């Protein structure tokens, strides 16, 4: 029934550490005393508050509305009262506008607007509007608004729907547990997406370190649902959109283009399960599954937590941290973002919290590149990180453009394999940031010159 294991070329095999949490069921956290809901939790325009300090809000109620097409509304993830609308620590490291809600512990915390959505009789536009109003963004990490990804541009069509169940980052087991426990929500979500996209074929790609999930999903596919499980090699970054497409469909997304340009739409399996809940009983995106793992936490667990739950509350719920804790990451160790404050909230896109210890973070000194070409054989987009690293070291950023630096997706495979401990991807991020800044400035200067010319 299941065909041979597929994969992409290159990539790396970091230690998985998934056994810490992959056999314990998803556990709902107790409601905390306070949640912090940043207005910017997605790619695109931040939401605009529609509540004021002192307002009573209900779980699932809209508290901030979308601003524009690439934006989504924000919902209260708990019933309580708004105590603050102000700058707050954001997991990205910035200070950002957020709505703080004090939880009403006397409330039953029922859903504000519980209802079933008669999705089969809704038009595509209505379905997309439902998804947008549900505050949906990709739960895999990038948090791109889901309705935007599902809106097929004029003249293009989606032939394949690819469901991303790879979860290739070490430690993370959220998607694994979702596939084991929430199969019905996943299949409902797939049905809705198939209707919106009118795809020919649906694939669910899952790494083979989750055979139990592959088998259980495959055995539970409803007979009338056209959908195929594809076992994928356990290799990082198998879950990167481009790599997943290449592994399953043997096609490459052209440089600078999107999957839809080769007729593919990819959605994370967690997003699809939450979508299933939206259409089953009208629950907007107000909670998510978060893996809390690593040797630095007392009780590693896979949690179901309200969006906006603060890091400190989650660590406390998991028994606290160990004495040798040295690093707390939002996301996995390969692409995660380190945190420095305990009051940062988990966002819609926070797939895991990984606590690393002193021992796991042994500092290594950088030594010269010996041109061993390990990085070339690791890079999933076939760059030459060796040469790029040499250019980055001496800040020759413009020359890096000739070596396609902008195609780097910052997966970190090059830094992982480098025997000389050269911080390759770290330097590439700097280079990309500065190059983007420069491009913006040049564009502005051009436009200004044009305006001046027009005025003269």
């Amino acid at each position, binding site marked *: 029934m299941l065909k041979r294991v597929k994969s992409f070329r290159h990539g790396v095999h970091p230690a998985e550490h998934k056994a810490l949490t992959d056999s314990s069921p998803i556990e709902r956290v107790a409601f905390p005393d306070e949640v912090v809901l940043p207005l910017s939790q997605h790619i695109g325009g931040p939401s605009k508050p529609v509540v004021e300090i002192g307002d009573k809000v209900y779980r699932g109620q809209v508290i901030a509305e979308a601003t524009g097409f690439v934006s989504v509304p924000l919902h209260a993830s708990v019933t309580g009262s708004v105590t603050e609308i102000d700058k707050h620590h954001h997991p990205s490291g910035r200070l950002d506008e957020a709505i703080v809600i004090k939880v009403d512990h006397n409330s039953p915390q029922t859903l504000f607007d519980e209802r079933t959505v008669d999705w089969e009789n809704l038009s595509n536009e209505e379905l997309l509007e439902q998804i947008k109003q549900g505050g949906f963004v990709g739960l895999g990490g990038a948090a791109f608004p889901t309705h935007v990804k599902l809106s097929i541009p004029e003249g293009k069509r989606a032939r394949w729907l690819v469901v991303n169940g790879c979860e290739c980052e070490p430690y993370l087991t959220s998607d694994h547990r979702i596939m084991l426990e929430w199969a019905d929500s996943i299949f409902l979500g797939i049905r809705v997406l198939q209707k919106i996209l009118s795809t020919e074929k649906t694939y669910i790609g899952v790494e083979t370190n989750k055979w139990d999930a592959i088998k259980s999903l495959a055995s539970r596919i409803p007979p009338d649902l056209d959908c195929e499980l594809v076992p994928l090699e356990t290799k990082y970054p198998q879950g990167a959109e481009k790599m997943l497409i290449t592994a399953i469909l043997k096609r*490459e997304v052209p440089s600078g283009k999107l999957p839809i340009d080769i007729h593919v739409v990819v959605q994370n399996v967690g997003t699809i399960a939450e979508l299933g809940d939206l259409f089953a009983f009208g629950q907007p995106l107000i909670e998510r599954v978060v893996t809390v793992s690593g040797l630095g936490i007392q009780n590693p667990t896979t949690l179901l937590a309200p969006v906006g739950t603060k890091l400190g509350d989650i660590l406390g719920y998991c028994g606290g941290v160990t004495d040798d804790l040295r690093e707390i990451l939002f996301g996995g160790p390969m692409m995660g973002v380190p945190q420095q404050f305990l009051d940062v909230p988990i966002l819609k896109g926070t797939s895991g919290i990984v606590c690393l210890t002193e021992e796991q973070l042994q500092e290594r000194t950088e030594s010269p590149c010996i041109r061993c070409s390990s990085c070339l054989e690791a890079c999933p987009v076939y760059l030459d990180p060796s040469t790029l690293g040499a250019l980055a070291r001496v800040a020759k950023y413009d020359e890096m453009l000739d070596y396609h630096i902008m195609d780097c997706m910052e997966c970190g495979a090059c830094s992982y394999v480098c025997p000389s401990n050269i911080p390759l991807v770290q330097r590439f991020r700097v280079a990309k940031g500065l190059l983007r800044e420069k491009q913006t400035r040049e564009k502005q200067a051009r436009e200004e010159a044009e305006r001046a010319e027009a005025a003269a």
Partner: protein
Amino acid sequence: MADNNPRLVVATSPFDKGPVDTPAIMRHVLYALAPTTLAAIYYFGLSALLLVTVCAFTCAFTEWLLGGRGSWRDSTVKDSSAIVTGVLLGLTLPPGLPLWMAAVGSAFAIVFGKLLFGGLGQNVFNPSLTGRAFLQAAFPVPLTTWAPYSNLDGFFSLRGDTFALPFLRPEVDALTTATPLALMKFEFLPTDFSALLYGATSGSVGETSAALILLGGAYLTWRRFLNWRIPVAIFVSVYLFASALHMIDAVQFRDGVHHLFSGGLMLGTIFMATDPVSSPVTPRGCWVFGIGVGLLVVIIRQFGGLPEGVMYSILLMNAATPIIDRLTQPALYGSRTGKKDDS
């Protein structure tokens, strides 16, 4: 708890690191060289042992003396790359070479082959071969004086003027023989294939047993410390080019197999052409580099004045490495679309 202990690291990802580091790679190269070195000692006795030891020690000492930044902690000698250079240089020298010459060559290899470029990773040419090229230019006669091989019975009999003092006229009554390549080139005498395979031939100390060198190469390939494309490209191009010539004139041009298994081709191919620092990083570049070395080897051996050309072939291609890398950049993901796109 983290509240009381603010010592959290805030860096950027990734936070996991593969197990391989540079000193480990160098160590594995030394393991891979062990069988060849032991065979050298078996065939050439104490002379070979002393030669390799003196080269390794001189290289390490020079690196420590001039390559460190003042303290042992920062010393670059700890990455073992200087020892690899020394052992490799020792293996390319004739067994009877006076030790002082070997020491001078080793110091030259480290200083002019490596440190002047900026140390590990910066050099254009393979340091061992740089040292050997210098010795060949400075002392052409001792560098082409080949002692006969024997076995363990003759372990303590020196193969030449091993302990000659610097700049004294070396004694010339040492027993010498011709290498298989010289036999072929100047006397048109073939050498038995099994002798080439097991190493029962005269030549540089390390270029005796092709089988053991291949064993080392196989080990490094298995551990993924060696780019297999380069040796494959060299072997194939040498074999095809030599065989083509052989078909034209079987007397003047030796057959491909003889080319592959004689002289320094095995040692040079497996351990020096694949030196990562001085060879290309791109996959296609490795093919170009290997084919270039292979063609040059056959051209020098068959049409040049010297019986052997592996050293100069590799050094010439080392010089071409930056331009090869530039011209053979890998095709970017997503740059090879078109045909299937409109399906």
